[in-house]
Structures are given as structure tokens and as C-alpha cells.
């Protein structure tokens, strides 16, 4: 595929931002200043960015508990996200949602989700809106290799298929659902499940931004032209434990080291674009520095931001309630 230098830099910047954002959140968790727990997306950047890069702002995504990467890739502002994670009133959701509920409807991000499998029907609804209102927008439903087993997946595949909705299912397969391996929990083949519902399905290397991006272009093309839903199975790698507090002992040290060494989608991207002389290391290093500064800034701002006031507990339950 051909991409302009600007686009390549933008794609890299987004992936890099996700990686540094997540590494930084992990560090901030250790300070004890971040409430609750987070599910970090580090390692899977090529999937989120490969999927969201070709989307328009008016296209919509519904995400999972591991939603930071999707949010950043769809254009959410990292200052708002970091503040949300710190539970501040300047957060994307005014500090009321937290890591697992980051949403920015103006950016087409319909929310991370605390319920595994919960996002599929919601994204399906966005696709239904687009079709009913004759917009050629598409919707993307994210799930993991564990969430793919949830009944909502099959139900939504069927509904999107018979209604020919512009919905794209992204199954991000990082090999694990919490401590449980997908080799144990997920029977058969994920693309075969999509095909069984007449949904064109492909498996791609989720560590390869370009492979994901190309598969998305085909799916988007199909969706915008009324061809209905698609499924993309991206094989990827989860760098941290399931959540920030997970000791991750169910994976051996060796395999975790090998993963970080051999399965780094950022290294892959850099190698690919520099070898093809599309970008040089200097340009990429510059991006790294920019991003580092931006992430630092987001933490400084989040820490300095005010906390919500007690009265905020009662707001936003209803639009109107006598």
C-alpha cells in the first residue's frame, strides 16, 4: 500500500503515543495516585492504529476494558484521558468513568467497556444509525480472544449479517483472557465463526500495521458500499499482565522476554519504513521525543487538575428527572 510521509509519521506517532502512554500509566499506578486498576494496551498498538487510521472522525468504535489504545487511535486527547485515569474533573468523563469507561462521542469513541462482550451490540447500533440515516459511516466493534466467546459476539454477527450493516468486528487475539490461554478457552477458528454467519473474515498479523490497515481498507470499502459486515482477526501481543496488578506468573519469564524482543510492532514499523527509505531514523526519533514530552505534559496536567466536587455524584444520571 502507498502512504504519504505525513501519514506514515502520523501512524507512527499514534502507535508511539499509545506505547508511552501505557508505560507511563503503569509507572503512575505504582505511585498509588491512580485509583483502581487499568488494563494496558502496550504491545497491541499496530492493531488499534491499523484499524482506526483509515477511519473518519464520524465513523464510530466501541471498545473493551483494554481501551486506551483504541481511544488514542480514534483521536481522543491524551490530556483528557490521563486526567480521567487520575479521576480528575478535567478528565474525558469528568472523572466519573475512569480507565474502563473512557468515551468521547465527538471523536466517534463510544466508550471502553467493563463488560466483556458488551461493546458488540453497541457498535452494531451505531452501524444501524448510519444505515437508517443514510450516512456512509461505518462502525467498529472491538473484542479480545476471550470476549469472542461471549454470546453477544454470535448474536451481533448474525444481526449485522442479515441487516447488512456497516459493522467491522475486530478480534484482537493476544493469546490470553486474564490468565486463561485462548488455546484452552476458544474452540475452533475465529474467522470460521464469522464465515459461518456469512461475514467475510480474515486473519492478519496484528503486529504489522500495514497488514491490519490493508484488511481494514477492504472491510471499510465493503461497509461503505452496502456490502455489510466483516471480521478481522488480529494476532497480537500483550506486554503487561492482564491488569496493572497482575503478577503474570502464568507466562514464563523467557516467553515474556522473547515477546518484547521479537514481537514489538513499533520496531517492526521502524524497520519496515526505514529499510524502504520511506522515513529515516532521525524523523522517527524526533517523533519519539515529541511524544515523550506530550505524555509527560499529560501527567503533569492531570496531577495539577482539580478533583470533582462532591455534588457531581448526583449529576448526569438523567437528562431530566423531576
Amino acid at each position: 500500500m502507498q502512504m504519504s510521509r505525513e501519514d506514515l509519521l502520523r501512524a507512527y506517532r499514534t502507535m508511539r503515543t499509545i506505547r508511552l502512554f501505557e508505560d507511563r500509566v503503569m509507572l503512575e499506578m505504582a505511585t498509588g495516585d491512580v485509583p483502581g486498576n487499568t488494563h494496558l494496551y502496550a504491545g497491541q498498538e499496530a492493531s488499534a492504529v491499523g484499524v482506526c487510521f483509515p477511519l473518519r472522525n464520524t465513523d464510530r468504535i466501541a471498545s473493551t476494558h483494554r481501551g486506551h489504545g483504541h481511544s488514542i487511535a480514534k483521536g481522543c486527547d491524551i490530556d483528557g484521558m490521563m486526567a480521567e485515569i487520575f479521576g480528575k474533573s478535567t478528565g474525558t468523563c469528568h472523572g466519573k468513568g475512569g480507565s474502563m469507561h473512557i468515551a468521547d462521542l465527538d471523536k466517534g469513541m463510544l466508550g471502553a467497556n467493563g463488560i466483556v462482550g458488551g461493546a458488540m451490540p453497541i457498535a452494531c447500533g451505531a452501524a444501524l444509525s448510519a444505515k437508517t440515516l443514510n450516512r456512509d459511516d461505518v462502525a467498529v466493534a472491538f473484542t479480545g480472544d476471550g470476549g469472542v466467546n461471549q454470546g453477544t459476539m454470535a448474536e451481533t454477527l448474525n444481526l449485522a449479517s442479515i441487516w447488512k450493516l456497516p459493522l467491522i468486528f475486530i478480534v484482537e487475539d493476544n493469546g490470553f483472557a486474564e490468565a486463561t490461554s485462548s488455546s484452552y478457552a476458544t474452540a475452533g477458528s475465529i474467522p470460521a465463526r464469522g464465515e459461518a454467519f456469512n461475514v467475510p473474515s480474515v486473519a492478519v498479523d496484528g503486529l504489522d500495521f500495514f497488514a491490519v490497515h490493508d484488511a481494514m481498507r477492504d472491510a471499510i470499502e465493503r461497509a461503505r458500499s452496502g456490502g455489510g459486515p466483516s471480521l478481522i482477526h488480529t494476532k497480537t501481543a500483550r506486554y503487561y499482565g492482564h491488569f496493572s496488578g497482575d503478577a503474570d506468573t502464568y507466562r514464563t519469564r523467557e516467553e515474556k522476554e522473547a515477546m518484547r524482543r521479537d514481537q514489538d510492532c513499533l520496531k517492526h514499523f521502524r524497520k519496515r519504513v526505514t529499510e524502504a527509505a520511506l522515513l529515516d531514523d532521525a524523523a522517527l526519533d524526533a517523533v519519539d521525543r515529541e511524544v515523550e514530552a506530550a505524555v509527560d505534559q499529560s501527567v503533569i496536567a492531570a496531577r495539577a487538575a482539580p478533583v470533582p466536587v462532591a455534588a457531581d455524584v448526583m449529576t448526569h444520571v438523567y437528562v431530566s428527572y423531576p
Partner: protein
Amino acid sequence: MARDPSVIVLGEDVAGGAGANGEQDAWGGAFGVTKGLIGRFGANRVLDTPITESAFVGAAGGAAMTGLRPVVEIMFVDFLGVCFDQIFNQIAKFRYMFGGKAVTPLVLRATFGAGSGSGSQHSQALYPLFTHIPGLKVVVPSNPYDAKGLLIQAIRDDDPVIFLEHKLLYDTMGEAPDAAYTIPFGEANVVREGDDVTIIALGRMVGVAEAAAAALEKDGINCAIIDPRTTSPLDTDTILEFAEQSGRVVIVDESNPRCGMAADIAALIAEEGFDTLKAPILKVTAPHTPVPYAPQLERTYIPDAARVEAAVRKAVAHGA
């Protein structure tokens, strides 16, 4: 629907006959309520769904967040269990979790109630479950006039509304103007004035209460009857005002008693209307059992006028 093109209707057989060779719009919903809509508004706005409540109720939620005003039917409220997550964790909480950004104008219509010999899984009331959940509005009309005004309000409302129709009330005839009108949520209907005892009743139990009140009147016992019409929001002012007036309260409710609607209203009065109470707050509800099938058992299960009468007499007798 004519007024607002963003309104769509979806559910199992809301038209009926999809993909079949015979009549289209053969059902118009399990109770024929939506019949004729597909002819007027087309299959693009009146959608038959597969039997996948989680998918289409959740989709209605996602659609509501993105520009549509879905009216979704799940036939029997008893089926909420297969899509409850989408209702109570997703749709009900979008606005709050997202810090006020989401607006989710959605109506979930379902029938409820015992009395049709439909058995334990097709006869429950269940509105206490929805009433418990912040973020949902819950409507339980007791007559055709209210049903129309409340439904139009529900469709125009910007919050998710659970709209529950008692299946035995479909056959009640009643005045309802053709013109569109709305009844605001959270405004109880004073069905009947009366100084001796205040009866609070919902849905089909309003009629039961009226029958009891009529009989009691012959013995000179005058009952007020308050129909909250919506359980969330609840018109606490009117309830407290009338509880205070008579000082004797009987609450009649078809739902199960534990953490039920009658308990909810009784607790309100016991806290905020205590000083003027002259008698215990009596509850006439279904027992703590599933709904039985045999008609003789089902009749025993459902609160009837005789039990309401007895409760009212007990309230009147207390400390008198």
C-alpha cells in the same frame, strides 16, 4: 413516528412475516400493538429481529447514542434476563459513566403481569428490578388514556424508558383522544378522593383497588386511590400528601414483595410521612413465589379486591 424520522421500531415480529410467502405484518408484535406500522413507515424503520435480545436491545442503545430514537419491544418483560446487561450496565449508565456526554433516548416496551395462564416465565411484573437501577425511567400505565400520553412522552423523552404494559389490560376499553398528547413522568394520578384510607396502586392493580373502594364505600369507608403511573421517577409529593391526609395507607402491587414496589413506597412514607400515620402501612402484594400455572393457583397469587378490602378494614380498625 410521522413527526420524527429518527424514531424506529424494532423487535421480534413487530411486523411479522419477514422472509415468508404469506402476509407481511402478520403479527404486529406479540399482541398486535405495532400492526400497520411497517405499511406506513417501511421496513427501514420497522425492523423484525432475530431472537437475540442482547444484540438488538444493545443495538438500540448504541443507535440511541448516535442519532436514532428506537422503540424496542421484548414481548414479555420476563425475557429481560437474556439482555439485562445491555439494559442496566450499558444503556442505563452511558450518560453517567461518560460524564454527561451521552444522550440515550430509547423506549423499551414489554408486557408484564399474571392472569393469562402463561406460567412462571411469562407472567412476572419485575418493574422493581428496573426501578432499582439509576439511569432508567420506568412507566407502568393503568389505562388506555394514560398509556397513550405516557408512551408519547416516553418516545420524546431523552432518557432510556422502560415501558411496561399489563397484558390483561390490552382488552380494556377506555377514552383516548386521537390527537397526540403527553403525560409528564413523575406525576401520580389521583384516581379517587377519600379521607379514610389512602390506597396506592399501579397498573392492573388500580382497577382492583377501585373495585375494593367501591365496595367499601357502601360501608361508609372512603378511600383515595393514587396511581403513581411511573415508578421512576416517583411522585413522592402526591403520595406523601395523601398518606398524610388519611394517616392510613394500603399499597397494592402485583410484583413480588421482597425489595418490591410496595416496600419501596411503604419505606418512603415510613421515613417522610411518619408523624401523621395512624396505622401500620399495609401491603397487598403477590407472595414470595414464582407465578403458578393452574388458574386456581394464579388467582390466589394475584392480589384481588377481597384482600384489598380486608387490608383497608384492618387499617381503619387500627387504633380506632
